[in-house]
């Protein structure tokens, strides 16, 4: 009897516990869906037309509202199917065929088909539109055409082979060919519901978004996203700390450390990003600098010696509080496929640097370095005023090079004056700047490495390559761009990176880490190194109402 009673009690206890756990799980699931995510745009979006996007704020809105055929996963860097179920690039690299998903509609209810893809490509490639997204698809003279094979199948044909073609479609938000709402009809997880100029952009959930989670729930989980336009980073941080914002997409190392000290769980360091800071010497033949200085700057030994004499470890540790890595070359180690893993960052070796300089006829005299003509080694480094990290790096390089007897003058200029000097008048000796890379593919660096390119910073727009190694880089860059074979492309670009390390036209200094902040109320966030760092999986983010209320 007692045994039976005990058994019944045990069963009732089990039932009670089961009910409690179920209730908790259900309520938790309910608390996770819905709500409004809030974060800041640092400038006014210049456009809502997805094909004309050219600034960070518009890029963020396009990412959240635009539906694309394929999407590069911001964590794995792999290409994943989105509106296209599958795709195939022809052997000659001139054609890509997409198989589209069926049954998808735009946010206004108009159906999605291959006609929309054809319309988008036609508009994108219209020269009158001046779309920078479209520029990436221009592979040669001739027009880009689309061939509708079926409502769910389309081939896009290019006049010349385009390397890394499929990745370019990550940036192309498909527009509706028939919707009267034009760019307001979207295929992404959110749609623009309200825009108050100078104040905010409100995005609401797209009720017709096609994606569902593994349990069959329609995505996105969030009801809306409010993007406040706020350029002041101090205010942004204060609002985040007060709980008025849920994310900060990009943080400086100073802010990061302060946040990490007060709320360690909210600051995220995703490791080295694709961005790099570097310096270079002016090698332009017509530059208004003394001939003996041009001779120094054109010597690979001199450039390598400068590179060896700068302590990159110190730059990473002191300037970025350890949230940066000594840079290796034009590709950050964060770029998993294209980075040449045989290369290492130039170690700090002032003795070796001095030997290199002595090999070129330089000599020390009373602590100062002189060239073989008896000229004291002195040059200026220009950088943009207002960039504290870069100014600090320049000051540290000044001290490092001072130990070799080299006198460095650090000059900060307002940005327009700096750009005028380095790209038009060439009236400078050395410059320190950075690249904000968003493209994993080396084709994104064609405008830097080709000797004829405008951004070939040390000696731009050459009619023919001035040196044998620049000619070799030209050949390799064109070779990798003209084949669709990833292995051959990698071989060519690996060699470009090796030449860049041997010749040091750019002296790469650091790759800054991708730093961001995510509030405890946001669940599912997994900050990465690729833009947009914190909200790349916005459709799967949820808000914990309880955590937000308690802040």
């Amino acid at each position: 009897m007692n045994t039976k009673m005990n058994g019944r009690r045990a069963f009732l206890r089990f039932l009670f516990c089961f009910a409690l756990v179920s209730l908790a799980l259900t309520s938790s699931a309910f608390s996770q869906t819905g709500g409004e995510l809030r974060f800041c745009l640092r400038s006014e979006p210049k456009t809502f037309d997805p094909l004309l996007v050219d600034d960070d704020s518009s890029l963020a809105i396009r990412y959240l509202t635009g539906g694309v055929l394929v999407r590069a996963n911001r964590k794995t860097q792999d290409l994943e199917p989105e509106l296209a179920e599958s795709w195939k690039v022809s052997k000659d690299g001139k054609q890509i065929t997409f198989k589209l998903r069926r049954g998808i509609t735009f946010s206004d209810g108009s159906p999605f088909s291959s006609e929309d893809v054809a319309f988008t490509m036609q508009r994108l490639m219209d020269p009158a539109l001046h779309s920078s997204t479209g520029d990436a698809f221009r592979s040669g003279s001739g027009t880009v055409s689309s061939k509708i094979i079926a409502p769910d199948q389309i081939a896009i044909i290019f006049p010349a082979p385009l390397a890394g073609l499929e990745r370019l479609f990550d940036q192309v938000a498909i527009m509706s060919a028939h919707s009267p709402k034009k760019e307001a009809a979207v295929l992404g997880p959110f749609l623009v519901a309200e825009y108050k100029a100078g104040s905010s952009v409100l995005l609401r959930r797209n009720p017709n978004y096609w994606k569902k989670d593994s349990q069959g729930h329609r995505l996105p989980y969030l009801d809306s996203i409010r993007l406040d336009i706020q350029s002041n980073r101090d205010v942004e941080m204060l609002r985040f700390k007060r709980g008025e914002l849920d994310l900060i997409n990009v943080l400086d190392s100073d802010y990061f450390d302060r946040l990490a000290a007060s709320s360690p769980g909210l600051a995220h360091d995703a490791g080295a990003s694709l961005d790099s800071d570097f310096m270079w010497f002016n090698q332009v033949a017509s530059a208004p600098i003394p001939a003996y200085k041009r001779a120094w700057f054109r010597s690979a030994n001199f450039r390598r010696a400068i590179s060896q004499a700068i302590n990159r470890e110190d730059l990473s540790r002191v300037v970025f509080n350890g949230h940066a890595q000594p840079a290796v070359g034009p590709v950050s180690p964060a770029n998993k496929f294209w980075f040449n893993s045989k290369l290492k960052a130039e170690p700090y070796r002032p003795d070796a640097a001095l030997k290199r300089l002595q090999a070129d006829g330089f000599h020390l005299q009373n602590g100062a370095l002189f060239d073989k003509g008896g000229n004291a080694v002195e040059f200026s480094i220009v950088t943009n005023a207002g960039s504290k990290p870069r100014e600090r790096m320049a000051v540290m390089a000044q001290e490092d090079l001072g130990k070799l007897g080299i006198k460095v003058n650090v000059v900060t200029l307002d940005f327009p004056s700096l750009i005028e000097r380095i790209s038009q008048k060439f009236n400078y000796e050395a410059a320190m700047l950075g690249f904000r890379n968003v493209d994993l593919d080396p084709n994104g660096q064609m405008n830097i490495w080709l000797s004829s390119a405008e951004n070939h910073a040390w000696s731009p727009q050459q009619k023919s390559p001035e040196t044998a190694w620049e000619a070799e880089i030209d050949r390799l860059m064109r070779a990798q761009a003209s084949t669709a074979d990833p292995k051959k492309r990698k071989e060519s670009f690996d060699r470009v990176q090796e030449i860049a390390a041997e010749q040091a036209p750019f002296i790469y200094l650091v790759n800054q880490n991708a730093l961001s902040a995510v509030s405890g109320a946001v669940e599912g966030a997994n900050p990465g190194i690729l833009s947009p760092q914190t909200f790349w999986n916005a459709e799967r983010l949820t808000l914990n109402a309880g955590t937000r209320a308690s802040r």
Partner: protein
Amino acid sequence: MNAARKLACVVVVAVCAVSLGANWLAPSGYARQFRDAPSAPPSHQHFLGTDEVGRDRFARVLYGTRISLLLAPAAALVSTVLAAMVGGLAGYMGGIWLRLARGFTDLFLSLPWLFLLITVRALLPLNVSPLVSVLITFLILGLLGWAASARVLSTSADALRNSDFVLQARASGLHGPRLFLVHVLPNLKPVLYAQFWISIPVFILSEANLGILGLGVAEPLPSWGSLLRELEGLISFREEPWRLVPLLLLIVVLTSFQLLLSNEEVTV
């Protein structure tokens, strides 16, 4: 001299004396980087801690004070001399010269001063030493900062031109430069003196403004402007109060300069 002026005088002299003794008080110098201790709090080795690249903040405050306090008066002298030449002479000569000078001064005053400074700074040669760069910065300040003083001086000189004693001197046969040098200029001295003292804090602040924009004195030389840049991003005063020392020093010195000017001198 009232108590406030005496105190202000003591403060200015004391600050000048301490900054001149920077070599002995802060032997580590303003440029040496203690890279193992960047952004360190105050300690026996570094009284005011270190800056972001590990430089001793106390040394930088002393040397920065020396630069700002020595060169701001020099720039004020340049601008006052220019103001006397343009405003004083035009006021003395009167007529079309006065109208031309006032028009030119108004035009100069209407220019966006900061943008003008940035433009001129950007046009300068790059390869100059930090010391030359600081001299150039203050010289530019002096050369561009004369207009407001010139306007005041032209009005004062215009009033003197029509005064009884100048008329009497003219009647006695005194004309031209001699009349200006013997009778007008000595009577302009209180205004010149006031304009000189007023200009000093203006130039200190202008250099600080340029420094905050990163366009002031070249690294590694410190100035109050470059030291104030450290306050960028400081969210709470309680976090690192020692970083406020350059700001406090600037406020104390500027207040002292204002107190040094008596009411009579300012309102002449």
